[in-house]
C-alpha cells in the first residue's frame, strides 16, 4: 500500500517528470552522439589516410579498430553517473520527505503499520520507479543502437546487463536520499547532504585515485596517467581506489559493454577485475542499511515538517 | 483586500488610498505609515527576539532602535528578548509579531486574523493591547477577523465582505440600532449576508 501510494505520488511530481524526460532524452542523445562521433572519426581517419598517402608517408593503423558496436553507449555511462545519480537522489528525497512535509506521519502510524513495513514500502517504490526508468532507457538505447549500428542478441543482453548494474548503482543514491529525508530537520539539509556525498564520490575520489582533474574524469576517453612515479600518489591510489564507487562502476561497465573506457592507469597493486562487481553492490547495501538504521530513529509522532 | 491595502498586491481595477497615499502610485508613502501583522506570524526562528525586532525596526527607518525596542517589549510585557524565536510558544510569537508591527509607531495597524490559534487568555490579552494602542496612542486599527465576539468588544466601525464585495459598512453603534430585533452580532451578520446575497 505504501509503495503504491509513493509511486502514484511521485508520478504527479512535475520536477521528477522533468528529470525523467531529461534522462530519457539524454539516453537518446547519447546513442546519436556516440554514433555521430564514431562516424565522423572514421571519416577523419579516411581523410588523414588520403593526406598521408599523398605525402608518401606511412599510414598508422586506425587506433580504434575492433571497437565494439556498443561503444555508441559510452556516454551513457557518464550520464548515469551524473543525471542518473541526481535523479535517484531526487526520487529518494521526494519519497522520504513527502509525508513529513504534508504532516501526515501521525495519521499513517496511527494505523496498523510498523516502521519497517513503512520503509519496505518506500524501498519497493524506489526500486520500481528506478527500474521502470532504466527499463525505458534500455528500450531507447536498444532501439537506437539497432537502428544506427546494427546489434546482435548478445549486444542486447550486454545493454540489459549495463542497465541492470546501473540500477544497483543508482539504488544506492536513492537510499541515501531517502535516509536523509527521513531524519533531517529541514528539507534543504535532507537534499543537500546526499548531493555533497555525490559530489565527493563523482569528482573528488576519482581525482585522488587517478590524478586526473575532476572534469577530465568525465571524458569518455581518458588521458594516460601514471601514479607509480609518485610514492604519495601511489599510496593514495592503493588506499582509495577500492572505495571510489563511480570509478568501480565505470570499470564494470567497460567489462559489460566492451567499451575501452578506462585509461591504462599504471598502478603498483593490481586489483582483481571483479572488484567493482562486489564494491558497487556493497555500496548499495550499505546505503540500504543506513535507511534501515534511520527508520529506527524516525519520529512517527511528528507533525508537519518544521522548516 | 488587506494585501492590496498593505501594498503587497496591486488592484486589478479601482483605486485605494491609505493615510492619504495611493497604494499603487505612492506605495512607499503607505508603508511608511502602516504596521502589518499577518495571519500566521512567522519570524526568523534562528534569531533572537531582539535581533528580529532590530532588523525590522531598521528596515522601517529607525537607525538606533534599541531604546524603542525596549519600550515596545516593556509595553507588551515581554521579558524574553534574548530568546530565539523558534523556542517561543504561539502566544509569545504573536506578541513579538505585534511588537514588530508597532516598533516604528505607525499611524495605521493592519491585523489579519490576529486571534487565530490563540487560547481564550491569549485572545483577551490581545484585545487589551489593541484597545490600548487605539485609545492611548491614537493608532487606527484595521482588523480582519471571523470572531464576531471580538468585533463586539473591540471595534468602533465594521465592514462586511461577501464574495470579495463590501456589502455593508457603518459604525458598530449604528449597526446595533439598525437591527434591534437581533440578539447578537452573529445574527446581524447572517442577516446582512443574506440581504447582500439577495442583492438588497
Amino acid at each position, binding site marked *: 500500500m505504501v509503495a503504491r501510494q509513493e509511486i502514484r505520488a511521485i508520478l504527479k511530481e512535475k520536477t521528477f517528470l522533468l528529470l525523467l524526460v531529461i534522462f530519457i532524452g539524454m539516453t537518446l542523445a547519447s546513442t546519436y552522439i556516440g554514433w*555521430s562521433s564514431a562516424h565522423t572519426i572514421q571519416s577523419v581517419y579516411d581523410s588523414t589516410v588520403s593526406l598521408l598517402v599523398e605525402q608518401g608517408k606511412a599510414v598508422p593503423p586506425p587506433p580504434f579498430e575492433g571497437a565494439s558496436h556498443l561503444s555508441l553507449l559510452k556516454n551513457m555511462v557518464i550520464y548515469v553517473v551524473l543525471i542518473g545519480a541526481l535523479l535517484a537522489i531526487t526520487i529518494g528525497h521526494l519519497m522520504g520527505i513527502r509525508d513529513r512535509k504534508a504532516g501526515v506521519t501521525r495519521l499513517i502510524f496511527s494505523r496498523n503499520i510498523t516502521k519497517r513495513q513503512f520503509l519496505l514500502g518506500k524501498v519497493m517504490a524506489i526500486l520500481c520507479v528506478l527500474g521502470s526508468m532504466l527499463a525505458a532507457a534500455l528500450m531507447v538505447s536498444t532501439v537506437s543502437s539497432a537502428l544506427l549500428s546494427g546489434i546482435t542478441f548478445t549486444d542486447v543482453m550486454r545493454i540489459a546487463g549495463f542497465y541492470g548494474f546501473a540500477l544497483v548503482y543508482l539504488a544506492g543514491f536513492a537510499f541515501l536520499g531517502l535516509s536523509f529525508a527521513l531524519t533531517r530537520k529541514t528539507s534543504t539539509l535532507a537534499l543537500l547532504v546526499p548531493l555533497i556525498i555525490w559530489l565527493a564520490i563523482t569528482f573528488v575520489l576519482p581525482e585522488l585515485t587517478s590524478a586526473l582533474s575532476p572534469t577530465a574524469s568525465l571524458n569518455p576517453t581518458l588521458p594516460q596517467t601514471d601514479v607509480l612515479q609518485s610514492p604519495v600518489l601511489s599510496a593514495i591510489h592503493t588506499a582509495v581506489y577500492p572505495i571510489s564507487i563511480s570509478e568501480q562502476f565505470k570499470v564494470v561497465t567497460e567489462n559489460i559493454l566492451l567499451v575501452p573506457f578506462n585509461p591504462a592507469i599504471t598502478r603498483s597493486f593490481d586489483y582483481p577485475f571483479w572488484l567493482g562487481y562486489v564494491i558497487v553492490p556493497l555500496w548499495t547495501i550499505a546505503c540500504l542499511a543506513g535507511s534501515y538504521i534511520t527508520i529506527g530513529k524516525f519520529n512517527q509522532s511528528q507533525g508537519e515538517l518544521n522548516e | 483586500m488587506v494585501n492590496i491595502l498593505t501594498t503587497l498586491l496591486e488592484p486589478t481595477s479601482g483605486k485605494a488610498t491609505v493615510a492619504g497615499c495611493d497604494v499603487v502610485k505612492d506605495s512607499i508613502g503607505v508603508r511608511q505609515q502602516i504596521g502589518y501583522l499577518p495571519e500566521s506570524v512567522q519570524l526568523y526562528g534562528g534569531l533572537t527576539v531582539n535581533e528580529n525586532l532590530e532588523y525590522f525596526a531598521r528596515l522601517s527607518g529607525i537607525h538606533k532602535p534599541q531604546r524603542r525596542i525596549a519600550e515596545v517589549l516593556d509595553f507588551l510585557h515581554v521579558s524574553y528578548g534574548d530568546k530565539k524565536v523558534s523556542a517561543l510558544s504561539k502566544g509569545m510569537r504573536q506578541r513579538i509579531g505585534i511588537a514588530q508591527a508597532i516598533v516604528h509607531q505607525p499611524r495605521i495597524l493592519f491585523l489579519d486574523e490576529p486571534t487565530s490559534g490563540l487560547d481564550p487568555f491569549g485572545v483577551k490579552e490581545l484585545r487589551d493591547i489593541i484597545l490600548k494602542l487605539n485609545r492611548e496612542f491614537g493608532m487606527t486599527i484595521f482588523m480582519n477577523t471571523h470572531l464576531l465576539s471580538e468585533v463586539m468588544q473591540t471595534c468602533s466601525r465594521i465592514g462586511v465582505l461577501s464574495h470579495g464585495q463590501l456589502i455593508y459598512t457603518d459604525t458598530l453603534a449604528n449597526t446595533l440600532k439598525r437591527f434591534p430585533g437581533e440578539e447578537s452580532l452573529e445574527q446581524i451578520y447572517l442577516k446582512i449576508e443574506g440581504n447582500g446575497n439577495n442583492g438588497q
Partner: protein
Amino acid sequence: MNNALTIARKEFRDILRSRLLLIMLLFLAAVTVTSILVSSQVFQSQVSQYNESLQILKELGKTPAGPAPELFPLNLLRGVIDYIEIIGAVLGILLGYLTISREKNSKTLNLILTRPVSRLEIVTGKVLGNGAFVALTLLGVGIFSYLGLLVIGGAALNPVELLKLGLVLLLSFAYIMIFFSLTFLLSLSMKTISHALIIAFVIWLAIALILPQISDTMDPDNQVPGGFFASMHLTKPEEKQVMTNFGNYETIRNTIEQLSLTKHYERASFAILGIKTEFNAMPLADILSSHWVNLLAVFGLFAASLYACGALMSRRRKGYVLYLDT
C-alpha cells in the same frame, strides 16, 4: 542604500551561522589543498621521470630530445579551477536558494515588503550580503592556493602571477554569482521551493558538465588517449587541413561548447593561469584580448543575471503575490 546595507548585513550574518555553508566552505578548502597536492605530485613525478630518462640517455651517450619540465606554479591550480566550476557553482546555487527559502519558510518576506523598502533595495541587499560571502570565500581559496603552492609545490608567486591569480578569482566571483542569481530567480518564481533547487542543479549539470562533455566526445582529437592526430603523427597545419572537410561538424561542436558558460570560464581561466602552456610566455594583455569573447560571456551573463533578479523582484503583477509558501 541604508535599507540595502541592513539587509546585506543580516544576510551575511545568516550565512555565517549556517552550518551547512560552513561545511561547504571547509569542503572547498579541503579539495583545494588536495588538488594542489595531487598536481604537485604529478609534476614531481614528471621531473623524476625526466631525470631518470636523462640519466639513461647520458649513459648511452645521447642527448635528451626535449627540455626538462618547467614549473609554472599557476599550472598546478588546474584542479582548483575545476573545483570552482563544480563546488563553487554549487555554493552559488545554495546561497541563491537559501536567501529566498529563509524568507519563504519563515514567511517574513511579506513583513519586509510592508516596510518602506523598495524591492530593488531588497535584491541589492541580498546580492551584496551573499556577494560579500562569495568574495571572502574566494579570497580564502586564493590564500590557500598561494600557501599550497608555496608549501607543497615549493613555489612562490611573483607579482605578475599574483595579478593573474587575482584576475581569475574575479572571474570566479562573476561565475559563482551567475549561479546565485539563477537559483534566486527560480526560488522566487517557483511554488515549491525545493524544486527550484533541483532545477538549478539540473541546469548546472547541463552547462557545467554535460555540454562540455558532449563537445569533448565530439572532438575527433579526443577519441584516442594522447590525441588522435598525435597518434597519426600529423602536424598542426596538417591537422587543420584535414579538418577543413568537416566544417559543419566542427561548427556544431563549437556551438555546443559556446553554450556552456563553464567552458567560457574555463578557457579564460586556463589561459590567464597558463594551464594551456602556449599562454605561459604571452603577456597578460594579449591573453585577455585573445579571450575577450570568453570574458564577455562570463561578465556579461553576470550583469544580465543581476538585472534579471532586480527586474523579477520589482514586478508587482496585478492580482499576483510572490509565492510565499513552500
